[in-house]
């Protein structure tokens, strides 16, 4: 089966140790995590993990099963890139001396919808949000100007189709739990 980028979205309770518990599931199967972000979700007190992995669909299905089995995981979903709207953000710190002298690069920044965040006599900080290849393109462009630092976020994504997580949580709050 073909390996592909899958984006796994996990809704969880907000508890210490859950990041490690979820990461351990990937470790046990020798899967490398391409990127991971954890943040608040649209639901109060519920966290959302977004994990990108390059594995087969069979593997991703099994790993979803293992993730959902964790006590504090509410639901987990997986999507292909086609099913998602996703973005990454990158910051580039560039040497001012080299940078101000070259107007072509400044034009390029404007064209690519990147943004200059900070200017100091020593360095510029440029921010770019977009797809991975756009961020890589800008990286390649800026590299010759003396890239002092570079950092890229993990992927953040929302699905094109509805994820029925909010209604699940509403049910949690209204239904009396019986074992």
């Amino acid at each position, binding site marked *: 089966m073909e390996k592909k980028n899958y984006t796994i979205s996990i809704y969880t309770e907000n508890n210490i*140790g859950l990041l490690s518990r979820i990461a351990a599931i990937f470790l046990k199967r020798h899967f490398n995590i391409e990127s991971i972000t954890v943040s608040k979700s649209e639901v109060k007190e519920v966290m959302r993990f977004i994990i990108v992995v390059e594995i087969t669909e069979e593997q991703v299905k099994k790993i979803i099963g293992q993730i959902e089995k964790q*006590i504090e995981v509410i639901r987990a979903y997986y999507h292909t890139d086609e099913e998602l709207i996703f973005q990454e953000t990158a910051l580039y710190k560039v040497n001012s001396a080299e940078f101000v002298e070259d107007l072509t690069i400044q034009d390029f920044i404007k064209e690519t919808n990147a943004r200059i965040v900070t200017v100091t006599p020593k360095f510029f900080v440029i921010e770019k949000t977009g797809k991975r290849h756009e961020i890589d393109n800008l990286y390649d462009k800026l590299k010759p100007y003396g890239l002092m630092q570079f950092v890229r976020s993990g992927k953040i994504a929302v699905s094109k189709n509805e994820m029925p997580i909010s209604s699940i949580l509403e049910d949690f709050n209204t239904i009396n*739990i019986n*074992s």
Partner: protein
Amino acid sequence: MEVKTANKEKKIKQAPTTVSGAEAVIKCLLEEGIDTIYGYPGGAIMPVYDELYKYQDKIHHVLTRHEQGATHAAQGYARVTGKVGVCIATSGPGATNLVTGIADAQIDSTPMVCITGQVGSHLLGSDAFQETDIVGISTPVTKWNYQVTKAEEIPEVLAKAFYIARSGRPGPVLIDITKDAQFATLDFTYKKCAGIRSYKPFPKVNLSEIERAAELINSAKKPMIVFGQGVILGGAEALLQQVVEKAGIPSAWTILGLSAMATDHPLNVGMVGMHGNYGPNVLTNDCDVLIAIGMRFDDRVTGNLEHYAKQAKVIHFEIDPAEIDKNVKAEVAVLGDVKETLQLLLGFLKPKNHDAWHQKFKDLYKIEYDKIINNELNGKEGKLGMAEVIDEINTSSNGDAIIVSDVGQHQMVACRYAKFNKTRSNVTSGGLGTMGFALPAAIGAKMGKPERQVVAIIGDGGYQMTIQELGTIFQTKVPVKIVVLNNGFLGMVRQWQQMFFDKRYASTELINPDFVAIAKGYFIKAKKVTERSELQDAIKEMMDSPEAYFLEVKVEQEENVFPMIPTGASVSDIRLE
């Protein structure tokens, strides 16, 4: 109004009492009906031990000789009673010594709650004396774990721990409690946990899947059941038997399913897997419908998955959704507790018999009997064989004993030959294969079922991994029977070396001490048997002993366990020699 008054009264009854965190731990255990726990004291858990001293008339704390022994004893207790096993240890090495038992409980779905002491919360992360990140270490091998740093968290967290350990597919839970949380006080009230919003222990049963399963079973020509421990964990033994008898289906078991159905039941066709019986392994690749009940298609059961039951439609009765299609694709997946799903299935099943198909199992058994079993049971010359010892125990117990086996050749022989009439009578480390499991597990098993005969069958290798628990047996006077089948080798590894590594016996020969002297050193009655002629009397003496008894049997050094499915081979390529 009346209701309100009643509530009010109830409230007054449950008025909180101010206790220390340590006392709260004990009160929680009592609320959960726990009367026996296993453990080992140390600095960071001392406040809890101080309370155990005060509550010693209510909770029996068994001091093992090593924390690993405490976990296996708790497992043995849990496996025979169905209750949650509890063990307790201090921080650092006390906690890390629990890890093997926790991992064992996780893979064998044993309900267990482990409580560990931790350094004071102000010292967390400072590499304090006996500080270790046991929550981090135990994460991959626990169903749930949690670190308590405030006394007032204790009742709710422990209630959750017991609920999680026992519900759904059971498993181990570890609760780490900082020393300051044990000393601090709280207003104690206890409410049993009835549910956790993110946790669904019992998947919703889908009736249409049960109907589909029944249709397949009703129209099957060559159906075969393989049942596992799920039947025991769900308390569905009687239902399984009804299903088997109504539909007339030959039924085989995994190592952890053993004893869920009487071994002499006519439709019980034996064990599947690497050293299982010939018939059920070969016919796995001949059946038209394979009904898996509460089992997880472990690789030791399936052999090469590419050649496992490819001709069959697989029906999988399972409580854990993550097990569906994990190793073997199911045509029909019936999620739920087997106690519920088998009950529903029964209503849809048509009475049948499959005599011609069942005969195939009998024919293959005959081949196995002639080639292997007869020789192993009725060996008249040479050194004693392991099977003869198990058979002699059968004769003496009539199949009523609890058999606790360790890991290796003797385990396979014990499971192949031991007779069982009652459920929850086979205690062994199936998934993890933990050598050293049996001796402490037998202690827990005997304490859980004091009215039953408990016999531990152990190899000379595994015995020495937890031999220190003889001290626990001596101190508690728990009357377990210990049989060490001594072949002077790590027999299973040696067998593989013989078969696959040109007999290069790398580090598998054991030069052993005088086991009888060691047992006697602990004031345990002990005997050694080297001759066939002594066996019967020795077993009888051991079984009749009201006290603990140690019996060493010198067996053939280089005996091999057959049948065997070599690694990577198909179940139907099982070898008889």
